């Protein structure tokens, strides 16, 4: 097991390194830099140029890269945001927590929706119930997330006022209190739900077809021949086997979430990584851009790794010792 994880990580290492070079290069190719926003007749252009020089922005890219990667590797220093005047690690720290909660709640919703629907749909396939659920998956597939999120914000946030329309927590609450927690949750529900409702359709469909597939497997017939009741057949045999690939998908869901958060965080003004990314791109705060992309790339890698590990834990056929 450990060997396996270590091996996977060894494979991931060059990937991450390559990713960092790619992202770094791309950031270098972006026009402008963080200081180009400072146009002000009262500010001495020479002072800006001096800052550029000091920050090494005028060095050739490979020197900048080596400087940067050395910092990352030796002290976990992702550089400094030009815009926020803070260590990137610190900004990302805040945003990452927000995105983490958003993702977590989204995942919970996703599975809360997908599992019952997928099971119902797969178990009673081709019935009216199944058709309703399949209908939902079609609609979900065809509705772009951002339209849905926008409309949901509009109706539930504004017209009904049930949910806050921006931010991650109400102002003035003390972290750690129950109100604070509730407020955060309240801010999360709408974005998470929009994302879950749209992205879950794939899981529903996948689960459905997985169940339909499993239903036809020989070992299900064996179970019936043992005299197991229908509910037992479903709960003990079909579900276990169909949920396995879903469990394995868990890690990949993370990758999928990254894309979703960009939209949802932008629309709901939720201060997470997705929003940070868009801002930083627009403001050419590229130490942040690099860090965000790199981090999320690593998250994808870890997601894939997680999937492999989960799969190997739950599936004895490929269990690694």
């Amino acid at each position: 097991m450990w060997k396996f994880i270590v091996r996977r990580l060894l494979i991931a290492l060059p990937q991450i390194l390559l990713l960092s070079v790619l992202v770094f290069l791309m950031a270098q190719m972006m026009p402008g830099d963080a200081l180009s926003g400072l146009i002000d007749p009262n500010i001495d252009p020479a002072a800006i140029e001096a800052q550029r020089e000091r920050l090494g922005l005028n060095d050739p890219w490979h020197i900048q890269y080596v400087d940067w990667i050395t910092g990352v590797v030796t002290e976990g220093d992702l550089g400094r945001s030009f815009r926020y005047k803070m260590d990137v690690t610190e900004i990302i720290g805040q945003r990452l927590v927000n995105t983490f909660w958003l993702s977590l709640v989204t995942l919970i919703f996703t599975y809360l929706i997908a599992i019952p629907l997928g099971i119902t749909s797969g178990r009673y396939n081709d019935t009216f119930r199944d058709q309703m659920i399949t209908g939902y998956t079609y609609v979900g597939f065809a509705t772009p997330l951002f339209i849905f999120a926008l409309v949901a914000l509009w109706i539930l946030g504004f017209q009904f006022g049930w949910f806050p329309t921006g931010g991650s927590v109400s102002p003035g609450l003390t972290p750690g209190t129950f109100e604070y927690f509730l407020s955060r949750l309240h801010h999360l529900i709408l974005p998470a739900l929009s994302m879950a409702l749209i992205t879950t359709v794939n899981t529903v469909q996948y689960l459905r077809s997985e169940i339909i597939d499993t239903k036809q497997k020989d070992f299900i017939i064996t179970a019936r021949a043992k005299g197991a009741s229908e509910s037992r057949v479903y709960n003990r045999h079909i579900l276990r086997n169909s949920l396995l690939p879903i469990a394995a998908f868990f890690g990949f869901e993370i990758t999928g979430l990254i894309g979703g958060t960009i939209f949802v965080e932008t629309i709901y003004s939720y201060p997470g990584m997705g929003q940070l990314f868009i801002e930083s791109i627009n403001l050419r705060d590229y130490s942040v851009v690099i860090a965000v992309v790199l981090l999320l790339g690593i998250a994808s890698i870890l997601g894939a790794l997680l999937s492999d590990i989960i799969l190997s834990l739950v599936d004895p056929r490929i269990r690694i010792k």
Partner: protein
Amino acid sequence: METTNAVENLNIENINKSPSGVSIIWREIMRDKLALISLVFLLLVTTLVYGISLFLDLDQIVKIDLFAIHEPPSSDFWLGTDYGGRDVFGQLIIGTRNSLTIGFLVTLMTGLIGVTFGLTAGFFGGHIDNIMMRVLDFFIILPFLMIVIVFVSIVPNYSIISFSLIMTAFLWMGIARLIRSKALQERELDYAQASKTLGTPRWKIMFGQVLPNVSSLIIVTMTLNLAANIGLESGLSFLGFGFPEETPSLGTLLSYARNPQTLENRWWIWMPAAILIFLLMLSVRNVGEALKRATDARQRRG
């Protein structure tokens, strides 16, 4: 051995051909009402959009008219005008055309790259596969949307072609992986082995024997990808990383809905595009599902 008359008289033109894959697919679609309607709708939209746009004067449509800003639908402007006084209907037609063009282009290019890549890796296996899969793994871990956004902000000359190329560069992996695993299976099947013993060169086996057997998978995947690609384009436009407004796409019209006034009060600008996207994706999906059923004998309806 004496050749009998049967062979002598064999006249190939008179032999009834067995139904080929295409006709099975066709039959399946004909049987599935929803898919049929979807297909007709798609064809109709495609022809209309490409047809009408031949007669439309793009310059005229995107011409700013200061005295016609935000006009509601009327007989002059069937779907009203936007904040530049530009005709929304015309933009919708051109936009649909552009979105479809991008969708098709990206789907075709990803298909081409993905299939070639996947087929090569899967068919040759071994070290080649190993190396190719490492490359693919690398692309897969890239956070797609972000990388594309970064690229979009770098590219100096932004056009349908360059946009499609960027999308393609980071979207071919799905199909490649699928085709590879299928090709890995196929090449172990006896028919591929048989071809080897018959002296057929490898590339011929790959393209002549294995490819037809993964073709249904390719068609299905590409169809579903088409829907996804149209969605992606509109998403990027929505985020503000789409085309300039004089190259409208469905996403451009949708992105106007980011303005709350437009979202609430000027439905004519974004709603038709939203509905069209919805219907397009739904129809493509329906057709895709029907194709999937057609290629999977177990699920076939007829």
